[in-house]
């Protein structure tokens, strides 16, 4: 019985069958995953009339006007800068505040840590989508409805619980002796943060950057209730404009969707390893 299964002829056959089955499963699901996106990109080059008679083939006539029309109608020239501002602002904000607070929670002894840190941990379980109504009312009461400030504030708040959790746990793992010997040498906590903790926190900051960039760039539910002015809208809000009334103008709609998915696809192609690592590190609940 200690003989390995593969060394018998039957075992080899079984292993071969398992391999073929595994390839079949992977190929089928890979095609199912990628084909709709390819289909979308392909159809963004067809005129609406051609799409109606040729939905599955490559375009006979490649129409590039769709993109210009979609860009103008969706006012993407305004939305792209907004998306960049929100994504960069929220990401930098979350990283800075998380690493700062993480250092305080991990390395500066205080009785408050139990409560402060604990409340952020509870926050991981909450999802801001459930709180969109009170958030909407709150920003109205505060008079910050339709402001970039409100969007950034909410996005930073949304990223903080997981950010602080990851930063605190990461900084806890940095040897306390490093901090203590710097203290004995007379360094203040700010100096220690700046000289020791921050440089050592680059990996966790990278994880937070990945999580917040992908999360914020694609976010829809919250910004949808925070702004209504086109000047302040982000890309997903602009793309949503192409549903409903425009859903029969396929050429333009598909071009808009392609414009909407392109930046993240490029980002993914460039940073695939970091993204998958960041996402699996950040997938913590409870």
């Amino acid at each position, binding site marked *: 019985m200690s003989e390995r299964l593969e060394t018998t002829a039957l075992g080899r056959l079984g292993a071969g069958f398992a391999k073929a089955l595994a390839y079949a499963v992977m190929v089928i699901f890979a095609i199912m995953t990628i084909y*709709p996106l390819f289909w979308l990109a392909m159809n963004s080059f067809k005129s609406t009339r051609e799409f109606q008679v040729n939905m599955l083939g490559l375009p006979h006539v490649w129409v590039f006007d769709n993109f210009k029309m979609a860009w103008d109608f969706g006012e993407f020239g305004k939305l792209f800068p907004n998306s960049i501002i929100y994504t960069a602002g929220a990401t930098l904000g979350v990283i800075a505040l998380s690493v700062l607070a993480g250092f305080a929670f991990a390395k500066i002894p205080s009785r408050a840590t139990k409560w402060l840190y604990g409340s952020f941990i509870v926050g991981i379980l909450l999802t801001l989508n459930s709180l969109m109504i009170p958030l909407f009312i*709150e920003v109205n009461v505060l008079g910050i409805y339709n402001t970039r400030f409100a969007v950034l504030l909410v996005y930073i708040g949304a990223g903080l619980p997981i950010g602080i959790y990851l930063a605190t746990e990461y900084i806890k793992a940095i040897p306390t002796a490093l901090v203590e010997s710097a203290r004995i040498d007379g360094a203040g906590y700010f100096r220690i943060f700046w000289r020791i903790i921050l440089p050592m926190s680059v990996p966790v900051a990278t994880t937070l950057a990945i999580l917040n960039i992908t999360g914020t760039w694609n976010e829809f539910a919250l910004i949808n*209730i925070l702004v209504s002015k086109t000047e302040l809208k982000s890309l997903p809000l602009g793309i949503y404009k192409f549903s409903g009334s425009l859903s029969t103008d396929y050429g333009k709609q598909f071009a808009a969707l392609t414009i909407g998915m392109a930046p993240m696809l490029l980002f993914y192609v460039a940073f695939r390893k970091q993204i998958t690592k960041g*996402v699996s590190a950040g997938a913590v609940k409870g």
Partner: protein
Amino acid sequence: MTGAKRIDREAGRAYWFMSLPAFVIYIVVMAFPIGLSIVLSLSDYSGGKMFGGEAWHIVGFDHYLRAIQDPWFWNALKNNFYIVLISVFGQLPLGFIFAYIIYRRIVKWPGFWQGILYVPNIISIIVVGLLWQSIFSPSGPIAQVVNDLSTNRFHQQLVAIIGSQGHLNLSDSAIQAVLKLGGPDAPNMFANPIPDLRGMIQAYPSNQYGVLITDLTNLLLQKWTPTFLNKPNIAMLPVLFVILWMYTGMYLILFLANMQKIDTQVIESARIDGANEGQVMRHIILPALSGTMVNSAILAISGSLSSFALIFALTGGGPSRITEILSIYMYNSAFLGQHDFPLANAIALITVIISMLLIVVTKVFESRYGGKED
């Protein structure tokens, strides 16, 4: 002593300076809205100025009662549970299978498969929703392919019955068969079905055979429209399919990342000692991943209950509210028609409570039946 005190003060100042900004934002964006939500759900506030406007009062649990007495609430809750189920029993097992296949190097190019299957996660939910909306739409590609196929078949059947060009078979039985092709409603199109249809066919000149076949097809063939987005009992299926399509890759990544933490030597030596793949799976991989599974299940539950944008873009909760989920029901209560903020907040809190309960149940389940991992 004074030196130590000074250090303490410096530590205290640094501590608060570093942690307070984050905490204040947390209060403003998460803690306060929860409190506000609770207050509003017990009130009769219906928009307008919160302070200094029309007075509003605390009225108790009326809105919670209204919610649970509304059949649409249960419909939305049911849909949320479908999503939880497809997530926990669809995405997780599939993701696990993919991860296992890749991890055990049963297929080549691990990075390639992983990279492909994760792609939908990276795309904006709105893009995904609108993309699938047009795929499933009555004028979309699925409807077109099905109709092209059925048109072809109808053509062939027609030709088989009435014969080819120049030799039309217009006997009563042939006409009857053509009518039968058109389905049960076809005879109702004519006053005297058989003679009328025969007359119509005879009116075509013999060189217009192609036109005749096309016209007959257009007249008699029931165009198929995708009913799967309209039928109450199955309207959720496409939604669930899209959810499966979008998020399975996420769990593949999670499982794979945690499988890769397993010491490969343990597996190698188990194999050398004669353990087969099934035993490796049962005694090494599964126990090592039970924590990841619980965490994934919690992620799936909380993600499912808070999802909004996908269904908002894909169906908007339609047709006629059939695919509504709690977050859409909440959103529409607050922003469509009269601003029913109390009801919306009651729904929000019910959602949060259900989510927390399910997470606790999962945790209890873990501590009772799992717990082999570190």
